[in-house]
């Protein structure tokens, strides 16, 4: 037993000497905490995330991999460097654009794009020119990336500046050109006819940024391109060459293209290029015979805008197209508004469209119909509009009529006075102000006892303005109404009559000093210089 104790003591003492365990645990120390706080003293295995390297270390390692690694490492390094925007990464990636492997060049180009898109462009002109030169790369993906990036390359690449040169032993500063380097200029011109459609389309889109003109011959070829995207982009770019006979021939050919979108684009182009040559107008004329109603309509309205008379059969097709349109797409909206350009011919189209299923379409149709035909002069023209089921349509029509119609007659009032819509009755009440006396006598009372207080208030205001016989009595009674809006209308009408109206108000005040309107009457009378 004594030996056992002796060996135990000796073992602990040796352990203490070699430092594997503390001589004694610190007081009150949690053993779990111990293993966490002092891991080197623990025999347990604890997994910890490896320490990440610094950004500089990461970039430097990637640079080495990109320069000296195997193919897979080079690709990985190029991809990783895309995450670290800055001059160090960018210069390495630009250097890798000359890698013999297309995979590395692609990865480098994508990473450079990532820098640009994240707001870290390369500013050095020579470096940017190096990137742009890859528009001539043998790999299509690299060329696509470069051509997509053109708008972001333009600013540093087209920047002028100064350079220091030594002439006869003297250091001289001289300006550098702000235009594209000649070899890059030639490269861009070749890229118009690149074998890849995406590259062609991008260069077509952005060539003007680079101040590289599009040669008519190239444009002519591009207008025959099989790719729809290229074709539509080429159609956007014809203005500089619009007067060239071969371009006009191409546009004429495209006006019969099988794709409806292309034909619609031709209408757009022909309209814009009309100023360059009269042939564009004849193209538009021929397109009014197009089998597609939308193309016909677009061509016809553009001709109408030029002041040309449109054939009645074409107008009929436009009308049918608009009548069959579901809702207000951008094309329908354009055509609908442009029908106005047909002048009197357009009136019939708008009249038909007042029956359309779309309330937005009916709104515009009613407004245009009434404006073009001076339709407010005859109530038979606009009475159906006030019977429309849609409040938006009715309100738009009322706004068009307001201030234009004169003297509603008895028949008009009679046909609308029982309208289920408050907004219509309110409009009638407002119109009583200059309606025919016979109409007021027949229907004024109906509006005066309308179920809606706003209609009644408007009627009171109109009657107050007319001052027909007995109006003072109506105002006096209205001051006793429960509705404040009615009292207010009556007060306003009476205030406008300085002799009899004021005395009615004074009398009301003396009899109803505490009513809701009384304080307002008092203030208004004082403002008018009358002591209540």
């Amino acid at each position, binding site marked *: 037993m004594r030996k056992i104790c002796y060996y135990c003591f000796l073992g602990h003492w040796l352990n203490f000497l070699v430092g594997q365990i503390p001589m004694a645990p610190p007081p009150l120390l949690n053993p779990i905490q111990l293993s966490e706080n002092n891991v080197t003293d623990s025999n347990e295995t604890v997994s910890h995330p490896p320490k990440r390297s610094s950004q500089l270390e990461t970039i430097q390692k990637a640079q080495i991999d990109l320069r000296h690694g195997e193919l897979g490492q080079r690709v990985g390094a190029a991809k990783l460097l895309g995450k670290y925007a800055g001059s160090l990464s960018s210069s390495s990636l630009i250097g890798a654009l000359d890698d013999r492997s297309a995979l590395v060049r692609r990865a480098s180009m994508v990473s450079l794009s990532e820098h640009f898109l994240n707001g870290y462009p390369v500013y050095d002109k020579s470096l940017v020119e190096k990137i742009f030169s890859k528009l001539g790369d043998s790999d299509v993906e690299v060329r696509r990336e470069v051509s997509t990036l053109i708008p972001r390359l333009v600013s540093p690449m087209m920047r002028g500046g100064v350079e220091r040169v030594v002439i006869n032993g003297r250091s001289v500063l001289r300006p550098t050109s702000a235009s594209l380097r000649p070899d890059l200029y030639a490269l861009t011109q070749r890229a118009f006819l690149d074998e890849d459609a995406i590259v062609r389309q991008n260069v077509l889109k952005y060539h003007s940024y680079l101040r590289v003109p599009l040669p008519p011959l190239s444009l002519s070829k591009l207008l025959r391109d099989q790719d729809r995207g290229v074709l539509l982009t080429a159609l956007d770019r014809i203005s500089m060459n619009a007067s060239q006979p071969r371009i006009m021939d191409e546009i004429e050919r495209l006006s019969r293209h099988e794709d409806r979108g292309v034909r619609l684009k031709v209408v*757009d182009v022909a309209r814009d290029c009309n100023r360059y040559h009269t042939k564009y107008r004849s193209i538009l004329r021929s397109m009014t015979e197009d089998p597609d109603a939308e193309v016909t309509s677009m061509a016809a309205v553009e001709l109408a805008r030029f002041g040309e008379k449109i054939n009645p059969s074409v107008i009929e097709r436009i009308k049918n197209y608009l009548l069959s349109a*579901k809702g207000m797409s951008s094309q329908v909206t354009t055509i609908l508004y442009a029908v106005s350009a047909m002048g009197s011919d357009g009136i019939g189209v708008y009249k038909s469209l007042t029956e359309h299923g779309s309330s937005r379409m009916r709104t515009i149709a009613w407004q245009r119909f009434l404006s073009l035909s001076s339709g407010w002069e005859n109530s038979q023209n606009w009475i159906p509009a006030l019977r429309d089921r849609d409040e938006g349509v009715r309100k738009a029509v009322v706004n068009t009529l307001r201030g234009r119609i004169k003297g509603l007659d008895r028949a008009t009032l009679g046909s609308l006075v029982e309208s289920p819509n408050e907004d219509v009755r309110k409009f009638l009440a407002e119109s009583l102000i200059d309606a025919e006396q016979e109409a007021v006598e027949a229907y004024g009372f109906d509006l005066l006892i309308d179920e809606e207080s706003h209609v009644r208030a408007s009627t009171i205001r109109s009657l107050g303005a007319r001052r027909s016989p007995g109006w003072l009595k109506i105002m006096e009674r209205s001051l006793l109404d429960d509705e404040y809006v009615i009292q207010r209308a009556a007060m306003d009408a009476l205030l406008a009559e300085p002799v009899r109206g004021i005395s009615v108000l004074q009398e009301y005040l003396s009899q109803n000093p505490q009513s809701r309107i009384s304080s307002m009457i008092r203030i208004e009378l004082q403002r008018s210089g009358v002591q209540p």
Partner: protein
Amino acid sequence: MSKNFTTLLFLLFVFSMFENVIKAQSTRPSRSEDGLRVMQLMKNPNGVRRYPDALPSLLRIMNEQTWAKFDTDPLFISELTDERIFENPILYINCDDQTNLEFSTEENQALRRYMELGGFVYLDAGIKASFLGADLGHSYAAWEERPEVKEWFQEIFPEKAFIPLDRSHDLFRIFFRGLPKNADLQIEASQKRLPETVLTFVEQEKWPQGTYSFVGIKVKGRLACVASPICAMGWGRDEFGNWIPPISFRIRESAENFDENLKLASFTGGTFEVIREDGLKDIIYSEPGQRPAWVQEPTGRWRIFKYYSGEEISNYAHSFYARLGMNVFLYALLN
């Protein structure tokens, strides 16, 4: 015999659907319109719609390319208690267009009733990974509905939860199958559709067989509601037939030694966990103010995020989203 009978039943079903549609059209107060009208919720009718041309454009394409006939003018409603919802069988909601996803008890009850009576609800942008934050121009294939949608539907169907739609679900192949080919993209047969790494990732992982991350709720055995990452951004076309607006791709790329290099590479941002299709979680590494940098997958693999933009990328994405969107609406029409 049984096959013929099934066909007959199917035709009767389709006919009854159309009959209901026609009845619904005839009972509504508006004037006669051809085709089925899709409703679109805008809680604030005057609010800004991020993709105003998207739904009308998709409906127009559907009318051109399928047998279905939709009214291309969506019916806008601002409240779910609007009685017109019971007259139209499909309700489209772009969750990003709403001021919030908080609805009154009455509205929730109305929506429950709508779904129980056969209505279909499509929650576009109903899936949104947390790391996207307020960035509305991105989508990410997470496999769970966004928290606001989860909270909302717990009030409507407390007993139900959104379940991920299997890649083999009929919704992904009811009309269009697989990913767009060159002919669908209207490009030459020899033209490269996408960069190689992008195409491989898209075909194998991003949208295999033309599928995407969808979750849904079944009511009375019928899929009555689906939620997806934002798809409307891919539906718009201008008058000439060009897709709008441009779309770019985020894809995952690997390379030699990435499992070691990305673990050690410099990184100072935050991390986000996102549920995958298999229920496991990806850890997304994201630098502040920048798009996500790379991902640690539960298999232990590390991959880097790469971003591709350009005409071919955008056209492909639009074509995919349009086909997917049409499949959703056609599925809704037939189920």
